[in-house]
C-alpha cells in the first residue's frame, strides 16, 4: 500500500505548493496543456465516433473470423508503445508505406495530427474492448422485444442498447482518456516532442526532467490531479445507472467473447 501511494504523495511534498503553482504559468507547461487538450479531444471524439459502432457490431454479430477481428482490435493494448510508434512511422510517415504513395500522409508526421493518431491507436482499443462487453451485457430479450414492437435495428440501438450500455461505455471511455493523456512511447516516435506542436504534458515531463526538474514536477502534479479527476468522475457516473438491469463494474468484464 505504501509502495503504491508514496510516489504520488512525494510529488506534492517534495516541492512547496507555491513553487508548483508558479511553474504552471511557464510557457512550456502552457503549450503542453494546449497540445494535450486539443489532441485528446479530437482523438477521443474519433474513438467514440468510430469505436462505438464497431463495438456494437462485434458484440451483436457472430461471423466466421470474428475472433480474429476482435484480437486485432485488442492488439494495441499489449503492444509495447515504442513498437506502436515505429508501426505508425512506417505506415504513415513520409517515407513509409502510405507516405510514399500518397503525399498527403506525410502531412501527418510531426504535427498535432500525428499525436492524435498515436493516441487513437493506443487508447482506442481500451474503449472498444469495454464497449463490446457493455453491449454484450444488454439483455438480448430487450433487443428482441424492441424489434417485435416495430423498431428498426437503428432505432433499437439508440433507444435500447445504447442507454443500457451507457455506464459500461463511460467506464471504457474514462480508461481510454487516461491512457491517451498518459501516452508517451508511440507519440514521441511518430510525432516527436516539439513544443507547442506535438509536445504533450507527458512528453514535457520527460523533456524538462533534466533541464528544470521543478517544471517536470509541476507538470507531474498537474497530471496526477487530472487523473484523479477522471477517476472520480467515473466513480460518480457509475452510480448514475439507467437501471439495475446491468451492473457495470469499473474494471470487470474486460474480456470479450
Amino acid at each position, binding site marked *: 500500500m505504501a509502495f503504491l501511494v508514496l510516489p504520488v504523495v512525494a510529488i506534492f511534498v517534495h516541492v512547496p505548493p507555491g513553487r508548483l503553482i508558479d511553474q504552471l504559468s511557464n510557457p512550456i507547461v502552457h503549450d503542453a496543456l494546449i497540445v494535450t487538450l486539443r489532441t485528446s479531444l479530437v482523438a477521443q471524439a474519433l474513438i467514440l465516433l468510430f469505436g462505438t459502432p464497431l463495438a456494437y457490431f462485434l458484440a451483436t454479430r457472430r461471423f466466421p473470423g470474428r475472433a480474429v477481428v476482435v484480437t486485432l482490435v485488442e492488439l494495441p493494448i499489449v503492444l509495447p508503445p515504442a513498437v506502436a510508434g515505429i508501426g505508425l512511422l512506417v505506415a504513415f510517415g513520409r517515407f513509409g508505406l502510405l507516405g510514399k504513395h500518397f503525399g498527403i500522409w506525410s502531412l501527418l508526421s510531426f504535427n498535432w495530427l500525428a499525436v492524435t493518431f498515436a493516441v487513437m491507436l493506443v487508447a482506442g482499443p481500451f474503449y472498444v474492448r469495454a464497449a463490446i462487453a457493455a453491449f454484450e451485457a444488454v*439483455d438480448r430479450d*430487450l433487443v428482441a*422485444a424492441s424489434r*417485435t*414492437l416495430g423498431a428498426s435495428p437503428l432505432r433499437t440501438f439508440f433507444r435500447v442498447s445504447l442507454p*443500457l450500455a451507457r455506464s459500461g461505455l463511460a467506464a471504457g471511455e474514462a480508461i481510454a482518456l487516461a491512457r491517451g493523456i498518459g501516452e508517451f512511447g508511440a507519440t514521441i516516435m511518430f510525432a516527436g516532442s516539439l513544443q507547442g506542436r506535438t509536445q504533450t504534458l507527458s512528453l514535457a515531463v520527460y523533456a524538462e526532467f533534466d533541464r528544470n526538474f521543478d517544471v517536470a514536477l509541476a507538470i507531474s502534479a498537474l497530471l496526477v490531479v487530472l487523473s484523479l479527476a477522471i477517476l472520480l468522475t467515473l466513480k460518480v457516473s457509475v452510480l448514475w445507472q439507467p437501471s439495475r438491469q446491468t451492473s457495470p463494474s469499473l474494471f470487470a468484464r474486460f474480456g470479450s467473447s
Partner: protein
Amino acid sequence: MGPSGAGKTSVLRAIAGLVRPVSGRIALDGETWFDAAARVWLAPDERRIGLVFQEYALFPHMTVRANVAYGGETRVDELLERFRISALAGARPRELSGGERQRVALARALAREPAVLLLDEPLAALDAHTKAAVRAELHELLRELALPTIVVTHDYEDAAALADDVGVLVDGTLRQLAAPAELVAHPADAFVASFTGANLLRGTARRDGELTAVRLESGEQIHSADEAEGPVGVVVYPWEIVVGAEHDGGSALNAIRGEVRSVARVGNRVRVQIGPLTAELTEASLDRLDLAPGRTAVASFKATGTRLVRL
C-alpha cells in the same frame, strides 16, 4: 402446449421473426412472412405481431408509459385505462409486481395494433395465488380482443381455460390439434393423455367378445370399450374413478384394489393415490370413506371410460 424443450417457444419466435427456420412457410391472412422455397423473409419489425415474453422483457430504463408507447403512440391512454395501470404510468418496471408487469407487457404489445398476439407462458412467472385470477382475466381479455392468439404453455389447465384449440407439441412434432375436451375424450397417444392429467397404465390387449381385455403390467385384468391389440397404454381420468372400500359392481366393470399411498388436497378437491391410480374426490367423500394412507381401497371405473392409446 407441451413439455420443456418441445419447441413451443421456438415456434413463437419463428412466427415473430426472431429465428429463421430452415424450411417451411409462415403466413397470416394472405400475407407471407416467411417462405423458404420462395426466399421470402420479413424482419420482426415488418410483421404485425404482439409478442409477450415469458419474463416480460420490459425496458428497465423507461417508465410504464414510455414502455407502452414504444409500440405505438395513439392508444396509450386507452390501453393504460383498460389494463388498470394508469396510476402506474410514471413508475419503473422494477417497482411493479409480477401481475402488474404482465399487464404492462400486454398493453405494450397491443399498442402496436398487432394482427396476431403471441403469449409465451403468460402464467408461468406468477405465483400460485395470482395465477388463477390472472388466468380468468386473460380469458376475458382474449375473448374481448377477438384477435388470433397463440399461447404457449406447459400446463393443460391453462390451455383448457384459454384456448379454443390446443396443439400438443412433443419433441418438435405436433401430436394432436383439437379442442381441449376432444383431447380428453380422444387422446391421440400416451403423451397427449398424460398431459391432460390422465392416469396412464401399461398392459397387453386382446379381443374379448365385444370388448377388449387388457392384462396390466401389475397383473390385474380390465376391460375397455376401445379396440386395440398388443401393447397399449390405458388411460383413465382421475375424476372418472369411483372409490370404495369394496367393489360393489354397478356399471363399473373394472376394479383395481390397492393401498392408499397418498392424499393431497388441491383446491376444493382431494387427489388420492390408490395403487397405480390417482383418483379425484371431494373432501366429504374422503371423510365418509375414511381413507388414509395405509388403508386398502378399491378404485372402480367403467369400460367405456377406459381409453386405449398407442404407447
